[in-house]
């Protein structure tokens, strides 16, 4: 019965499915932010500023990710910059 209806409804959008998918994305972002310390955004922007003082990194060349481990917190910093070839 449900199959049959699904078949006929293929074209019309299944709005509950869209709602569910949107929620999953939103909530996983919310949960990530929830665990972050309040100072993280400031720390990030200061780190970027300092790094760019020394390298020619673009904003996208600097990746900072925050991890919440069972006993401690961790940030991972990935920086790259263009090499001046001789």
């Amino acid at each position: 019965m449900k199959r049959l209806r699904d078949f006929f409804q293929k074209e019309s959008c299944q709005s509950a499915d869209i709602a569910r998918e949107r929620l999953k994305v939103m909530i996983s972002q919310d949960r990530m932010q929830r665990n972050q310390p309040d100072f993280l955004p400031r720390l990030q922007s200061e780190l970027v500023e300092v790094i760019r003082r020394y390298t020619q990194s673009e904003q996208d060349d600097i990746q900072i990710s925050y991890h919440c481990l069972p006993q401690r917190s961790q940030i991972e910093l990935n920086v790259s910059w263009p090499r001046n070839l001789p």
Partner: protein
Amino acid sequence: MARVVVVTSGKGGVGKTTSCASIGTALAMQGHRTVLIDFDVGLRNLDLVMGCERRVVYDLINVTTGEAKLSQALIKDKRLDGLFMLPASQTRDKDALTYEGVGEVIETLKEEFDFIICDSPAGIERGAVMAMYYADEAIVVTNPEVSSVRDSDRIIGLLDSKTRKAEEGESVRSHLLITRYDPERVEHADMMSVQDIEEILAIPVVGVIPESPAVLRASNQGVPVVHDSDSDAGQAYSDTVARFLGEELPMRFTELERKGLFSRMFGGRR
């Protein structure tokens, strides 16, 4: 041991006060001494749903500031023995409630009651945190709607971090109550299902209350809908409380009633 239960949601207007009134009433019907506390400072709704608005003299803030004794502020339900409510203040500023003041009131109530049910204001700010702070358990009220589910997840985050239990390294036992559920719209894939919501929020469902005209009828009369034992919503609330007390019951009113051809042709709308 008294159990302190917060009824909370994040999003406003999802049915916290309606649920508080019916859950408290059903607990008292089963002989549990129950008190309902309205934490919605400034709005004060629970007394209306309980039908005791004309008997409000003192409120929670009067008690915390010592202007009134707890016994003066508690309003006894006119239908059930062992059911009381403590109204919210209508006028004062929201910061008039303090954690110490609320803590003292709850400690005193614990000596007298089996259940202390806290009706939280909407939002994720101070008022909502105050209402949940002393809770042992939470009933998270959610509608099958994106914004409501998202806010419930935020509230679950607060329950995990901003309560006394959390500070002591324990956790607030949380139950999911889905209200205003419409099986017909779920069937047509216009509304998320109980399973969808339970999977996203990852806390166990204690009840599902259908969208029902009986709720408005009940609140018009100031009689909690659980008294209307012929109504779907009333029965769904009694089931909810039975589950909350540990009984195992299947969910009702979550599936679309399949009408036979005959009733579809000849049956009028209910």
